[in-house]
């Protein structure tokens, strides 16, 4: 949006210029020359040359040449071009003057996008983090959300899965809801979107994060978790010429951090320490005890893979309009061997605007996305592909050659249902553990038996008209839309590995989802400076949105393991070929949805003398009756903010040189926002769910339908609201070389929607009430230093933010809400996530491990009275807060160096203070593989100062594994990128008709510093808010080596 102001300047410059060129008849001394850009030494077209004190002027032609007749040889000329520093030059009798234009990087002209408008950065009163397109252009991530990671303080990006095509989630200033509706409002070019994964970072001009409530208040009920505003690129010319660029990346991907689990011999040793007679067990399972064959399941599962990316951009711009179009193709095959984890995406972006008359401008931004993805299962206890990669013992071979190798169990199955025992593509049978019968079996079978595919097509666009009837007033009408279509297909066959890893039925399913969304917004901005010192900015507007979804799904299952299709070949695996057998159960679904909202909003900004700013925002929001009843649907969200530009005060300007202190500003704001996404499906009423239940009488299986009230009605429901206070200080020193920014925020969220139980005698199901409050507060610190040493340009920037998260109130009738028993469904660990006053939200509630008894090697625990006890003395009431998955601080560091054609950048980010609870070990299935940590640190007669108990002591102790002994520090620092680039000198590239050619090589996510013994600490966590922080096998972040090149024509 920087371009808006630049553009206006450009228009006036050219206008003046045209006047001048016609009046140069009487000149006497000719000056000519070439004007080139200091950035790339390219000739510049359309640079204005003006003889000082006259109306005499000229502009450069297509080759950057100019010629001007000045009055005499001592004349002075001024050359100017938008975005470059103007230069005043004495002719001094020279006939040829070649000029090098320098880019103007003066910060004061920078504008930032705020809701429904832009503001000068110097006028900003709220806490807005601005990430420039240049900051993220060379990242290897293909997800705009992930690109924000580590780039600004107060923003946490959660990559809860490293799988291809998995979008990152964003948390702004903490966690302010007990629900999982914690993501910020995402706005791209004015359009509200539900994800920004489709947006390649290379298409982004800027990302603004509205962190404080006052800035976000203009988005009212949807802005309680902050707002991310993204502006895609508008077309620009390269020194007056169209610009065509092509770039590609080839990315080699492999597993980053390897988990520290047992190899064959160590595993045997560990099980012996656990009390098993491994000699006998090995013997009976056909394993050579002394020289066991070893399978490294991690290596079997993960391998190298390649991702490729191509991007072509065409752009141009002039005083009448701009054009930007880009096509981006991505093909990513993840690091799980085979083609079951893939993501392909083809996106096209088309941005254009045109000034029809001086008072009307129209434009459109359109993005077209086509994607397809396949995923392996993870983050679950059953049917997971990644859990067995970590858990299957290393003695089990990958494949078996013959039926004789089978487990007894499989032999029994094979005898009756041979088709249940599946063969791999190499013709061998998938092997599974003989030591551990109750598990997910062979991870490769878990991978191969799945065939789920998703794909979709989405068009997102906006079209707008800006009317400019009088000076300072711009009226905008903007229509934005999303048309999305998604298709899912799945087919699965029965299989058998063991009592748990099996499926008895054939199944097939398909679904088609069509969604249409539009928003129509009309708003008017008025900006005017009155009597020199009084700046007024005002905005008023309205918005109406409508979202329609229509989803059709169908599936069929072969009851009792019967086949469901009319043929077995692959070309029959579609719903059309489902047979009509009695044993084939079919099900269908369709429920069109509609939701709407209406909002009015306004803003008033007043600045006096560039010193004092005052800003008010106000928004009134109403949502449809599926969220709140019509008499309670309007929510009102005010905010106020003040700014004091101290560096413009006389006592500063008179006393401190601007070379030392160039800028100092204090900001303070207060505002209120809502979170409406927690409400859905008419939660405030309880009509009759008609014919939603059934019973069968006698031995007739026919269903007799029944009906019941859908719940206990709560007509007083309202949305969650947050109030936030923010204080900030922006400083720049040494001619803007050093910039510092400091913020403190305190955010209270109240009226959390809590699902609660009334007393059971009243009602045994849950009902929803507004109860509960959360406080988030913290400091945010950003610093950057920018300078050069000779030809070496460098800049260093860093950010650091802290977060303190507390539940400050919970409903009188509830002391604690517990969720996610065992962390993930299907585990039998006793840990749970709990929500309780005085604690971090959804903390880990488990037993408090208090170290080893040095004499006996037994595990010790602290009970609720603070006494040290053994595990058999523990009971439910001894469970306590052992930690939280929420980081207490997050930070990022970026270093950029440039020397002649070489550029080098390092970017790292990290978190600290968070915990990971590893739930992979199960006390009732102790023959799984597990973390070597528990043997390496185990107590023994020779290691009495150990941190972990004697192995035998806890091998089958469920309390121990349900204690803080299973919890690890989640701190990590990751070097997200190290990139080295080289831009060939122009003199060389010109010869091959290229404007620019840059090669680069980059290491992404390559180095991770962490004490976590599991896989990647960044992704080793389940993602949902009520149960984050559990590691049960997650697709890790891939470490990448990227080779790329970009060509400009």
């Amino acid at each position, binding site marked *: 949006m920087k371009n808006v102001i630049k553009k206006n300047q450009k228009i006036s410059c050219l206008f003046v210029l045209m006047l001048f060129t016609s009046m140069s008849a009487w000149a006497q001394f000719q000056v000519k020359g070439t004007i080139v850009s200091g950035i790339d030494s390219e000739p510049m077209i359309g640079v204005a040359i003006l003889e000082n004190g006259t109306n005499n002027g000229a502009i450069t032609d297509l080759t950057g040449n100019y010629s001007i007749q000045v009055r005499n040889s001592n004349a002075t000329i001024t050359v100017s071009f938008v975005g470059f520093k103007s230069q005043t030059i004495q002719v001094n009798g020279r006939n040829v003057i070649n000029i090098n234009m320098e880019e103007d990087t003066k910060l004061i002209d920078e504008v930032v996008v705020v809701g429904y408008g832009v503001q000068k950065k110097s006028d900003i009163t709220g806490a807005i983090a601005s990430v420039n397109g240049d900051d993220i252009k060379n990242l290897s991530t293909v997800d705009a959300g992930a690109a924000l990671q580590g780039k600004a303080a107060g923003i946490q990006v959660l990559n809860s899965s490293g799988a291809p095509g998995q979008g990152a989630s964003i948390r702004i200033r903490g966690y302010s809801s007990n629900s999982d509706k914690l993501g910020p409002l995402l706005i791209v070019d004015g359009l509200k979107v539900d994800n920004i994964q489709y947006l390649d970072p290379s298409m982004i001009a800027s990302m603004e994060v509205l962190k404080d409530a006052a800035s976000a208040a203009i988005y009212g009920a949807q802005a309680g978790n902050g707002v991310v505003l993204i502006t895609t690129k508008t077309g620009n010319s390269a020194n007056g010429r169209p610009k065509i660029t092509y770039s590609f990346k080839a990315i080699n991907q492999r597993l980053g951090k390897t988990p520290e689990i047992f190899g064959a011999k160590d595993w045997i040793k560990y099980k012996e320490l656990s009390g098993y007679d491994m000699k006998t067990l090995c013997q009976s399972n056909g394993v050579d005890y002394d020289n066991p064959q070893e399978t490294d399941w991690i290596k079997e599962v993960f391998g190298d893979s390649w991702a490729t990316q191509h991007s072509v951009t065409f752009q141009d711009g002039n005083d009448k309009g701009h054009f930007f179009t880009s096509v981006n193709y991505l093909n990513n095959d993840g690091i799980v061997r085979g083609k079951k984890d893939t993501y392909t995406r083809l996106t096209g972006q088309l941005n254009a605007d045109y000034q029809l008359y001086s008072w009307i401008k129209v434009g459109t931004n359109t993005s077209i996305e086509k994607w397809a993805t396949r995923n392996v299962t993870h983050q679950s206890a059953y049917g997971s592909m990644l859990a067995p990669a970590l858990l299957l013992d290393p003695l089990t071979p990958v494949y078996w050659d013959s039926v004789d190798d089978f487990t007894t169990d499989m032999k029994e199955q094979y005898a009756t249902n041979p088709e249940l025992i599946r063969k791999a593509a190499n013709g061998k049978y998938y092997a599974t553990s003989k030591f551990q019968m109750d598990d997910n079996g062979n991870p490769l079978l878990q991978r191969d038996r799945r065939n789920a595919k998703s794909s979709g097509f989405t068009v997102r666009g906006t079209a707008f008209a800006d009317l400019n009837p009088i000076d300072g007033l711009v009226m905008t009408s903007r229509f934005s839309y999303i048309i999305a279509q998604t298709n899912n297909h799945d087919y699965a066959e029965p299989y058998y590995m063991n*009592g748990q890893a099996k499926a008895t039925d054939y199944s097939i399913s398909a679904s088609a989802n069509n969604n249409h969304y539009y928003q129509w917004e009309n708003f008017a901005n008025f900006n005017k400076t009155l009597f020199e010192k009084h700046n007024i900015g005002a905005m008023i507007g309205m918005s109406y949105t409508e979202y329609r979804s229509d989803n059709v799904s169908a599936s069929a299952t072969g009851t009792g393991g019967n086949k469901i299709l009319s043929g077995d070949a692959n070309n029959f695996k579609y719903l059309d070929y489902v047979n009509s057998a009695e044993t084939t159960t079919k099900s269908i679904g369709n429920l069109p949805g509609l939701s*709407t909202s209406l909002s009015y909003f306004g803003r008033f900004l007043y600045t006096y003398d560039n010193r004092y700013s005052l800003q008010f925002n106000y928004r009134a929001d109403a949502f449809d*009756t599926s969220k709140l009843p019509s008499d309670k649907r309007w929510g009102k969200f005010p905010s106020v903010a003040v700014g004091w530009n101290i560096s413009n005060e006389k006592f500063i300007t008179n006393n401190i040189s601007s070379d030392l202190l160039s800028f100092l500003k204090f900001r303070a704001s207060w505002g209120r926002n809502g979170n409406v996404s927690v409400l859905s499906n008419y939660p405030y009423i309880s009509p009759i769910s008609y014919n939603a239940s059934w*019973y069968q009488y006698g031995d007739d299986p026919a269903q007799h339908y029944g009906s019941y009230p859908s719940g206990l009605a709560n007509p007083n429901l309202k949305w969650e609201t947050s109030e936030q206070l923010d204080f900030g200080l922006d400083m720049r020193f040494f001619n803007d070389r050093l910039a510092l920014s400091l913020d403190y925020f305190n955010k209270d969220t109240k009226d959390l929607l809590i699902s609660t139980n009334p007393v*059971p*005698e009243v009602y045994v199901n849950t009902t929803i009430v507004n109860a509960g409050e959360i406080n988030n507060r913290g400091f945010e610190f950003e610093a950057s230093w920018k300078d050069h040493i000779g030809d070496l340009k460098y800049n260093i920037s860093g950010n650091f933010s802290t977060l303190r998260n507390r539940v400050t109130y919970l409903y009188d009738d509830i002391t604690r809400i517990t969720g996610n028993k065992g962390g993930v469904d299907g585990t039998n660990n006793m840990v749970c996530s709990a929500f309780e006053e005085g604690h971090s939200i959804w903390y880990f509630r488990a037993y408090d491990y208090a170290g080893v008894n040095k004499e006996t090697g037994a595990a010790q625990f602290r009970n609720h009275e603070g006494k040290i006890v053994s595990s058999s003395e523990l009971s439910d009431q001894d469970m306590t807060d052992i930690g939280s998955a929420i980081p207490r601080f997050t930070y990022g560091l970026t270093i950029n160096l440039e020397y002649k054609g070489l550029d080098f950048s390092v970017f790292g980010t990290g978190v600290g203070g968070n915990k990971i609870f590893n739930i992979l070990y199960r006390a009732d299935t102790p023959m799984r593989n597990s973390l070597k940590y528990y043997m390496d640190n185990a107590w023994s007669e020779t290691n009495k100062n150990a941190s972990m108990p004697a192995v035998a002591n806890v091998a*089958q102790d469920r309390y121990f594994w349900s204690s803080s002994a299973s919890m690890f520090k989640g701190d990590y620092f990751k070097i997200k990128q190290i990139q080295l680039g080289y831009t060939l000198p122009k003199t060389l590239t010109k010869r091959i008709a290229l404007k620019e050619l840059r090669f680069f090589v980059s290491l992404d996510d390559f180095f991770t510093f962490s004490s976590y013994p599991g896989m990647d600490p960044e992704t080793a966590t389940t993602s949902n808010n009520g149960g984050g922080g559990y590691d049960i096998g997650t697709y890790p972040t891939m470490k990448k080596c990227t080779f790329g090149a970009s060509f400009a024509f």
Partner: protein
Amino acid sequence: MRKIIYSLLGVAFLFSACEDRLDIEQKGVISFDSFYKTDDDAQNALNNLYQSFCLNIAGNEGIYVALPLLFDEAGDDMLAAGNMYGDNDFGAQINEFRYDSQNEVIKNTYWGLYGVIYDCNLILDNIEPTTSIKKRVCAEARTLRAWSHMMLAIGWDCPPLVDHILNPSDKPANNAVEGGHNGLLEWCAKEAEAAVADLDERESPSDKVGASKVTKGFALTVAGKARLFKGDYAGAKANLEQVITSKKYELVPTERWPNLFHASGDLCEEMIFQANALENAAVGDWSNKIQRTSWMWIQFWNWRTDKLASKPSFIGPDGWGGHSIRADFAERMLANDGNSPRRKATFLTGDEFLYEMEWNSTKGENLTRAELEKSPKIGIKDPTGLYGFAGYFANKFVAWPEDNEKGWYGFKNLTIFRYAEVLLMYAEACAQTSDPNGLGLKCLQDIQKRAGSAHLSTELTMQEVKNEKSYEMWLEAVRFPDMVRWGDTDGVVNNGKNIPTTYDAFFTKNEPIHRLYVETSNPNKGQTGFVKGKHEYFAYPFAATSINPNLKQNPSGE
């Protein structure tokens, strides 16, 4: 000028919007006020009550059924078992009397019973019994409400009486009925009796519909049991005699006794009421179907088959070994019954387990006893043994292949009352009062004869009834309440101590032939076992007492 005009036209749009576009009708529901009106509505609401009964009482917990588990685990005839100490602890806490008010089985049972009461009250508050159908519907709801309160009284002494829909903010108290525990039982009996007139009667012993819903026979059984528990033996006798003389129920023949606890016994002549769950292929298994049955209970309640050398052929799914039979009880029953079909269908001795039972691995090989003794294909292979097993192998509820048609879960009805319990309760009521026509003794003998027991009572005494009931009704959720009301709780004071594990010396000690032996352990150093005056009634769930100051905690939860 043009720009001003066009711009003003633009302004005209600016604030034009219709708020009525925000009013969107909810799909798939009808208003509360339009329901509970017609006969069809009444029957429809009743169908929902039966679903509620299935979900709240017969299922919904996934790996166990809370109500029978709660009353079984506290008995003096079983052991909580599993893979090891701490496994299946929700049940072991009750078995070893080390539970507190947060025990999930206690909570789930309590929640389930009040869940049924809520759905009963929806009918009774909203439907006027003005037509014959509405009268019957209300009577069925009334009976189920009485049964739920009776089970609450048996489990918790004086739980709140809830005879109408309460306000969300209500905090009901216990002792709401005059007479406390007995007063509540009296209320249950009267309610059930009052419903009898409007209820259908089971048409005949072969009427399966009549075994899947509330009938006159069920209401009278509820009334009889409530009276028996409050010590009104004459009243109980009167109620139960009507069930017997109705001739709508019969004991199944001896050879079908084992089937009573499996799918093939569902809705048979002996069933008075079962929560019905039938396979319907048109309904997906996860569409609220597996939630209304024992679901994975067949695995939880089954032996730990992965620790055996091979799977016994009579077993359907693999198991997690959640329960076993106590050795002292097994020996008593063995002495009483001998090798009766009932005894063999209740548990196997070690020898029967090893050599009479058919193993999949040796199936069809016709091995001799001597060959079997040396075969590595049978026995308890795992060196950790079978935890909680005392040398006997309970098989009454171990799921058969017929119960396991779905692979690892099945659809099997939960029995609420079977006729044998009626006969035994009647015999008890007679033993406590008089047995003028000899019907009481006959009832007792009918049970014994049918069991094929070696013992036949010649006299109707309380001891004879007590013994017989403990054998016939093993693990049918009646033993612990009987122990409490009879004061026979000495058998559980040492629960949680000396927990047995059964090993096979053939595998653990490399002995040449199979030999089962039991070792005991004391994994829990804390307080376990039944304490008189404390454990007669279960704790009120913490989740209920913590938000209700009017609900007074029982001693066991303090």
